[in-house]
């Protein structure tokens, strides 16, 4: 188990480094998929099978396809990549290094702590997850719908073309004609 954990962690760190380092954005996305698989492996190690499956379906499946689409639409390449001034790079490096140092120090101090585990191998199953989700975390679960709803409204608002007349033009034919003109 321990070896497997180290293998997965190594894989996750390596691939996420490659996401940043890779020159080609499509390669970055492919490395990101590998990172997600490594993280899904961690979920399985933690007895969260359902989460692992959902993670792969949603992230590696849906979101990454979206990523690839966007990257191909944008037609990114090395020439269009904005170059940051050196001082910004140095500042970012120093800040990230300090954060890294702090995190390493914090986790190093905790190496003697006993890990708190549920000990219940069934804890990650859908049944148990559902019980927690619809009892203890019912309100957060429900209120998330507002988040998605407002994101959807925003997507429609921002993506839809403004018709010159506004929505008051009840004449559907006229609107359709307008849309044809735009296309």
């Amino acid at each position, binding site marked *: 188990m321990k070896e497997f954990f180290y293998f997965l962690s190594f894989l996750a760190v390596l691939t996420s480094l490659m996401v940043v380092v890779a020159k080609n954005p499509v390669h970055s996305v492919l490395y990101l998929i590998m990172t997600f698989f490594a993280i899904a492996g961690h979920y399985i190690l933690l007895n969260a099978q359902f989460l692992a499956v959902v993670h792969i379906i949603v992230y590696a499946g849906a979101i990454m396809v979206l990523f690839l689409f966007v990257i191909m639409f944008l037609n990114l390449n090395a020439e269009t990549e904005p170059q940051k001034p050196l001082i910004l790079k140095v500042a970012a490096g120093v800040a990230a290094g300090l954060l890294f140092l702090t995190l390493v120090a*914090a986790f190093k101090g905790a190496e003697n702590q006993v890990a*708190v585990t549920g000990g219940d191998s069934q804890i990650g199953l859908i049944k148990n997850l559902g019980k927690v989700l619809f009892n203890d975390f019912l309100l*957060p679960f429900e209120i998330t719908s507002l988040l998605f709803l*407002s994101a959807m409204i*925003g997507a429609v608002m*921002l993506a839809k073309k403004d018709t010159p007349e506004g*929505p008051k033009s009840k004449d559907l034919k006229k609107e359709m004609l307008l849309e044809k003109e735009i296309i």
Partner: protein
Amino acid sequence: MVALISLSILGVFSMIAGLFNVNTKAVLTISIVTILGVLGFTAGFHWNNDYSRFYDMLNFDNYAVAFTCAILGSTAILLLFSEHFFSNIKQYITEYYSLIIFSVVGMIAMVAFDNLAMLFLGIEIMSVPLYILVGSQKKNLLSNESSLKYFLMGAFTTGILLMGITLIYGETGSFDLSTIQSYFQENATDSSPILLVGLFFLLAAMAFKVSAAPFHFWTPDVYQGSPTFITAFMSTVVKIAGFGAFFRLFYICFAPISEVWTTAIWVMAALTITIGSITAVFQNDIKRLLAYSSISHAGYMLISLLMVKNVESEAFGAIFYYVISYSISSIALFSVIMAVQKVKDSSSIDAFKGLAKANPLLGIIAAVSIASLAGLPPTAGFLAKFYILKSTVESGYVWLALIAVTNAIIGIFYYFKVLIAIYFKEAEDQSLSLIASSLAYKIVAVLLVIGILVLGIFPDLVYSIF
């Protein structure tokens, strides 16, 4: 809870109303009436009547009720002023309302949370509509830029917030505020470093949301680029909610280990006030100037976090009084800016030249609100600063109080730059006399001015409610 449910229904209602081309004036009226009704209900029912439901996800104690009422009240007043904003927009007006209302729902979750999951969701529900509203002027490059900037930085901050919550969960095994607090009480002297890192991650994320230095860089660009109505919304209502959550988290949850974070807050507050007020001196755009002034006000509000050792109710009173006075003064000033922008289409300070001569009422509103923001007696802003500084000195932070006072004097300088333009400069053209304000606008604006003065003379109305 009633507030959350009825506001969600209101948001969905105004979204659907757009589908059936319901008159936007009617939707606006219904929204304002509902918001005021919810405000009345929350204040009347929950005050001194702690109300915790849904497995301790939310807790409507007096603190949460006070901040909820401040948020709802400010939103209602802002919506009353929205005529100038919405008269320029042809489409999606009801969608704007529903986004604003959804954002308010998130804020209520933020100030009443009793569980870190609710804090996270509240911040997200508040922020996502804001990203959209900031970028709602699709043809305006500045608006696009500010939306993208705010979104990217906000998303990154969300990651940091989540990381902090995760680290705290890993150590305490709970998202629940009272559990975390009792964990801190038991291990006050030897908290593990993981917990402290988590605490500072949360501190950074919250500081971003209230735009405290050194996490303030997005503020001027976003405030300048977004539509003025949204700028007003962000610099008042969103700020109230941000500080509500900030205080709830640090004052209630992290109070037992205050030695650890008070130094950080000290430095952040001093930096925020200084950067905000010194940079504001060089601004020529009033929205940018107000952005920097809002940064420096955030610094004053941060100071009140340092009073954690004082009597609790006094600190709550001081912060709440500051939030209210800042909010109503800003709304009053923004209402003037919106009225001027309607005829001038510019937000530089030069656009305000000769406003007092062309429209004396707007001149008076601007004068009183600027005096209050600068902290001059007898306005509410003076006593707000006074209470904060008084308890700063009482808590032993004399140097911080000195820095704050110095910057308050600098603040008077840049606020008066605007006042001089309004009162002592000649207008370049006659367009300012074209400002036509409706009767409703006049009544509300005059009431706001009266409110600023009344709060300044009778501070106990707000200061000692806790």
